[in-house]
């Protein structure tokens, strides 16, 4: 296999791991604050309307405290 082919293969593997990592993070909800910020920017025109986004700490506090509890699973 040529070196560029190898590099390509390696790149694919790295990419696969990154995809898996992204998936796990999304599944756990780890990116929620970023999603919230993106959304806030959109809703409040980047804070130009006087609203300020929650701090990361405050966001997580509220998110977890107000999360619905799921009762399924067998």
């Amino acid at each position, binding site marked *: 296999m040529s070196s560029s082919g190898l590099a390509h293969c390696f790149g*694919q593997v*790295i*990419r*696969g791991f*990154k*995809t898996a*990592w*992204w*998936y*796990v*993070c*999304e*599944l*756990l*909800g*780890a990116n*929620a*604050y970023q*999603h*919230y910020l*993106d*959304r806030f*920017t*959109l*809703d409040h025109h980047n804070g130009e309307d006087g609203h300020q986004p929650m701090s*990361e*700490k405050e*966001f*997580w*506090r509220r*998110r*977890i*405290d*107000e*999360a*619905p*509890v*799921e*009762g*399924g*699973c*067998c």
Partner: protein
Amino acid sequence: MVDTPFTGRLGASRMKKCLEDGPLDTTQGSDRMATAKTPEPLTENDEQYIIRNKDGVPVGTKPHTKWTPLRIIIWAVIALAGAFGWLMLAVIRGEQVNTLWFVVAAVCTYAIAYRFYALFIQKTVMRPDDTNATPAERIDNGRDYDLTDRRVLYGHHFAAIAGAGPLVGPVLAAQMGYLPGTIWIIVGVCLAGAVQDMLVLFISMRRGGRSLGQIARDEIGPIGGTIAMVGIFVMLMIVLAVLALICVNAMTGSPWSVFSIGCTIVIALLMGVYLRFIRPGKVAEVSIIGFALLIFSIIAGNWVAQSPIANALALSGTELTIAVMVYGFFAAVLPVWLLLTPRDYLSTFMKVGTIVVLAVGIVIVQPFARTAAVSEFAGNTAGPVFAGALFPFLFITIACGALSGMHATVASGTTPKMIQKESQVRMIGYGGMLMESFVAIMALAAAVSLSTGTYFAMNMSTAGIIKLDTAAVKAGALIDTDQATGDITVWLPGQEGVPSSAKPLTAEQVTAWSTDMSAGVVAGATAEQKEAANQAKAASAAVAVTQLGVTDAQGNKPRVEWDQQDPTNPSATIAMYDEAALQQIAEDVGEPSIVSRTGGAPTLAVAMANILHRIFGGKEMMSFWYHFAVMFEALFILSAVDAVTRVTRFQLADAIGNWAPKFRDPSWRLGSWICTAIVVGAWGSLLLMGVTDPNGGIQTLYPLFGIANQLIAAIALMIVTVVIIRKGYAKWSWIPLIPLAWDVSTTFTASWQKIFSPDPALGYWTQFTNARALIASGDLTGTALANAQATVRNTAIQGTLSIIFLAMAVAILVTSVIRVITTLRSGDTTTSEDPHQDSAFYAPSTFLGTRLENRVARQFMEVGDPKHIPHRR
């Protein structure tokens, strides 16, 4: 550059930004990695398949499958492979059946059912409309209503429905052989379980994500709806009790398991504090730390098990029951951030890991099935794991994995509030359940790879073992004691090669075993007493399995068998038998004893350890894999126990609030403590009953669990039928009616037998009358008297619960049928669906996204102005 994951419109804006900034970072979870180059723009030809709203924003794609020759060939190959798998499993069999055929038959059947049957249901009764906004798009409050990437939601939904159920049900059902369970898991999921999950999800999604109970109220009426709500509550209590019982049984007398499972609670608390105060929001980071600690606690468990404190951690069932109840109470009243949320992270992590580990193990090791295809216990009620013949008891023993009512609560809970497009329901609802079924198939494959003797030695109650030993004395069984180790070998009269040193088994010997076993479980037993009890268990179980009226795959009488590594040649193994084999298994997995570890979890753990050590780590790692398996099963169970306790506590507070409005106030601490105590008391007392049951709790309680779970399924399917008929699709009502009819016939027959059967192995009331008569006769003393009294008490409760369940199910069925008849007569098809609201959102509906879908998704990123999405805050 295709369809990068996004959440709601914010993803759209981010995507737009990325496009302006230059090439997109496609590593961010984009699928179709190989084609991560700019897709060609949409053509005129594509346009005919694209659904747009009035602003021209794409909101969906029309189905447009063309049957190309290649496609036909692919599906023909899948069908042939599946047929061949079934042929190898069910017809040819041969000397030994490779469990890889389980996987082949399952995967091919799933593919065909998903592609054809699920699509047929989608076209006939669901008719998803992508111009209609889903609740997530309409309400989108960033909390429970949250547009979630379909692939993430698939994982989410799977993690919510799958727990310990699909892992233990198939293990218990293995007493009937591997074939009945395999057929039911695969056929059942395609025609029943996945259909239920998908349709409930769809119906709930069209109704703003309302719960099953609320839908029942709206569709069937207030009486049926209220009964359904109360019924689901009571059934959940028995479900929790049995799940907790499995967990307690896996920990009883095992210092290692008690330590590592106890550690999961401590680890969750640490994670909670870390996330709250040290590094808020670093969820992935804390999950990895938690997972590493979890692995470390498994390793450390070994040191603890060999240390002086081991005896203090070898807890009895009753002690563990109290511990689980105390835990359940605190888990439900403590703030969620401290215990519940972090433990869910661990649980999700482990769920994904479990599937991977199981699949890798089965596919690489490809163990042979060692139990018979259909065992003798399929046709009689003598089975020691649970009583009852194949019909109806197989179909209630394997619930999760084939058809599970519990899923209806998830499919009408969080998932419908997060779905992006109506057309994704098939993938998430049907596809999610197929994955759970796959887990069940792998659990079954693992369980049947143990020798029949080992399987039964692990799954008989101690009372059952003594009973069979007494039969062995009568049958003239001979035992030969090894002078050096004291291990016994069992010989049956007339068998060839009986050594001259073999002596007849005596009644005194059996009594001595029984006494040793009882002395080992009383509170305050010494380490020596526990050791003697474990030896007695191994010896008596080795004798007992020979007296089971069952044969293995080769048609031989079962015998405990185990392969031990040859000390002189590490790559070779020596076959061990009987007591020595049982002792060796216990030593290999790092447990004091593996005899009579009912509930399915330890059996699966031994089977998984036996498979996985061949790939990872050899014999040295076997005890690690055993405790890894026990831990994830316990983790799933504990997650279910505290989450359901919490949810039902709120429901209870709401119900009590009708009379005492103060209970509705969630900030009233005392009220929430009272409600939690009632809920914990309800399942805890049932759990205690199971733990102290003289016949072994699983044997008597598991059928009740299965019946409860499957009656919830009956309620869900009945509601689905009513909704479909009220929608005007009466001609397609056979789709839910097939599983409903099957479910009703099995659960009602099972309930009937449990209530009325004169067979003492089956009927609760027959056991009750017999035990009462025994007590009245005055012949009983000591333990026997206490056991009879426990039987009277337990069977009275179990019998009463069976009657209540049956009565509730009948009431719901009757009210539903009345509703169906009035609907058909009046032709009234008014619906409780939410009114149509134009969607302005696009996301592909297939897991990977077709070429067209990914191109449309890209266009949506460009033209789908976020402002077009309604209900912006």
